[in-house]
């Protein structure tokens, strides 16, 4: 589904990613762990298409298409979803209108007519129910005045609405209490299907107790220095990152 080969990327001339190789197949959950400042969030941003990063080398092929040649919005319509570490507050844009615009633009991209309003509203209700979100989202502005937990739940809600093939969760667990963490993790688990995949970026092993990964990668200094099963996460929790640093 996603194939990253020798990806090198920099910001302001400083190289952050120094040759990433990663293969993700449908149905898989991958976790990327690693110390702060090793390039985890950069990798997420480069896949999503944030233009502050310069891709120096390598390729990202997603379902047969070259992502690096696509604008941000097309990547999204192709099925990439990024759950932001710091979701942006957008006063004046209601969640309903935001999602309705997004859903319909993605439909347009695929040559479909806009979703009728009643169908759209029913879908919103269905996803809220599924994710155990009780808040009245409809008329609230996107993320405005939301708590940390609410923002992350809102990211998962958007993911549920857009039904991406590959969802990237960038430190979704940061700043969450255990209850919010469970809601987020349950949401992800409910959205898992044989034909979609998840890339979970986290600093701590805690989230992986709830979202169990198939493969764990350790990112250090812009490279994936180790990959393994879910037990690798446990090992990291026990030994800390110093062990990896020493090896690298």
């Amino acid at each position, binding site marked *: 589904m996603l194939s990253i080969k020798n990806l090198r990327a920099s910001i302001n001339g400083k190289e952050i990613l120094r040759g990433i190789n990663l293969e993700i197949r449908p149905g898989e959950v991958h976790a990327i762990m690693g110390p702060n400042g090793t390039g985890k969030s950069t990798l997420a941003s480069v896949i*999503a*298409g*944030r*233009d502050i990063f310069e891709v120096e080398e390598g390729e990202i092929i997603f379902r047969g298409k070259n992502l690096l040649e696509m*604008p*941000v*919005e097309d*990547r*999204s*319509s192709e099925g990439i*979803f*990024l759950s*932001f570490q710091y*979701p*942006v507050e*957008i*006063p*004046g*844009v*209601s969640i*309903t*209108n*935001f*999602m*309705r*615009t*997004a859903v*319909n*633009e*993605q439909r347009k*991209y695929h040559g479909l007519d*806009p979703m009728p*309003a009643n169908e759209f*509203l029913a879908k919103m209700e269905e996803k809220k129910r599924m994710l155990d979100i009780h808040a009245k989202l*409809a*008329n609230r*502005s996107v993320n405005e005045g939301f708590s940390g937990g609410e923002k992350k739940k809102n990211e998962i809600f*958007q993911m549920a609405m*857009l039904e991406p093939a590959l969802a990237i969760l960038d430190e979704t667990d940061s700043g969450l209490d255990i209850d919010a963490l469970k809601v987020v993790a349950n949401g992800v688990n409910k959205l898992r299907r044989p034909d979609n995949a998840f890339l979970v970026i986290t600093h701590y092993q805690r989230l992986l107790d709830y979202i169990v990964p198939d493969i764990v990668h350790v990112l250090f200094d812009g490279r994936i220095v180790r990959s393994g099963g879910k037990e690798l996460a446990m090992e990291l929790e026990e030994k800390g990152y110093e062990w990896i640093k020493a090896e690298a």
Partner: protein
Amino acid sequence: MEGITTNYNTKETLIRLFGENRPEESPAMANLREQAMEVFVQNGFPHTKLEKWRNTDLSRSLNHAYTFPLEPASDGTEPEDIFRCDVPGFNTFMVSLLNGRVTDAGKNLPQAADGVIVCSMAEAFEKHTDLIERHYAKYAGSGDNAMIALNTAFARDGVFIFVPDNVEVTEIVQTVNLIHSSEPVFVQPRNLVIMGRNSSLRLVMCDDSVDNNVGFINSVSEFVLAENARLDHYKLQNKNDHSALINNSAFHLEAGANLSTSAISLNGGLIRNETQVLLNGRGSHADVLGAYLMDRHQHIDNQVFIDHAVSDCTSNELFKGILDDSASGVFNGHILVRKDAQRTNAYQNNKNILISDKAVIDTKPFLEIYADDVKCSHGATVGQLDAEAMFYLRSRGISASNARMLLMYAFVAEIVNRISIPELRGRIDDLVKKRLRGELSVCDQCVLHCNSREQKIAFEIDMSKI
């Protein structure tokens, strides 16, 4: 020194015209005009060497061979011929002005029986002399304001509204100010709104172009709100790029009176709104709001002066604007808190988004405080669209152009959402969307009566209906 010279010597023409066209009227009125004319003769048209006009240059707007219609047009054109009223759910009592003259005098408001008067100023000058004597030209002080003085010197017509004590006017009153002429015209409507104790009124004043001809409007409106009166006032401006619109509004509030005034500027070659609010009675409150969306070479200037003359008053001022292309804007907010105006609460803010490198805004929020127990804040921001927010929206599949529009719309929505008349809010909401999509040029019909209600606006934003 004279700052503005034109090829047509507009000032001299006006002086000559003044001498040749003295209406038959009371000595008091004639005297008022003469004094006003003196102020204009001394000051001339405002020029950019004056501090208050530093960033608004009238010289280009004045450089046309204007005619100055003082009498009603005789070619029989009716405003109904140039636009239609067809907005469902928005029924107003409409007063149309064509080239500065009220055209449909004689219509009666259903509440006339309660003593409410809505008529032309020309009629009021004759029939309501007591009210005119008491209130006319008492609030928009000429001082050295040459534009107000010029208006006072020449004013012949406009809209006159009187609401007696304890009367709530249920119908929305709407004035539509149209310019329709094959040659450049310079018109000077004059409005007076008198509101009694505990009365209330909703008033929408539209300035529209119906063609692309050159026009200059120098309008003055005076509003007086007696104790506990409530005025909900909107100015909608959608003028062609060859228009100049100078709009002076003076509001006088007595104790407990409540004013909300919003200026929504969608198009216009040059627009200057001068708003003065005098909070003259304890517990009075004013919301002064504005939104502007300017592009091409359009120019918008909002000058707001709020005078907290007595204690325990509140004012709330917020102007938001988006400038694109080579558009330019000015915001000049001045709040004066006088020595005895204790426990004043005043807020003032001007926020701008510049879309292009060539767009300019000069913003100057200003507080002048002489009381010691006050709560005042002021601020101004100038920025671009937030890159983080752009990326966020696009990462959900929204195209860059729609993401940009969504953010611009959201920026202005803060003002639009405060419009308390639901049908008007919906209508202006549509207009803002159309404007942002580049679909709102100068309609061939009035802003509020654009014949496009049924047309679905494809831009998927609808704050209210879901």
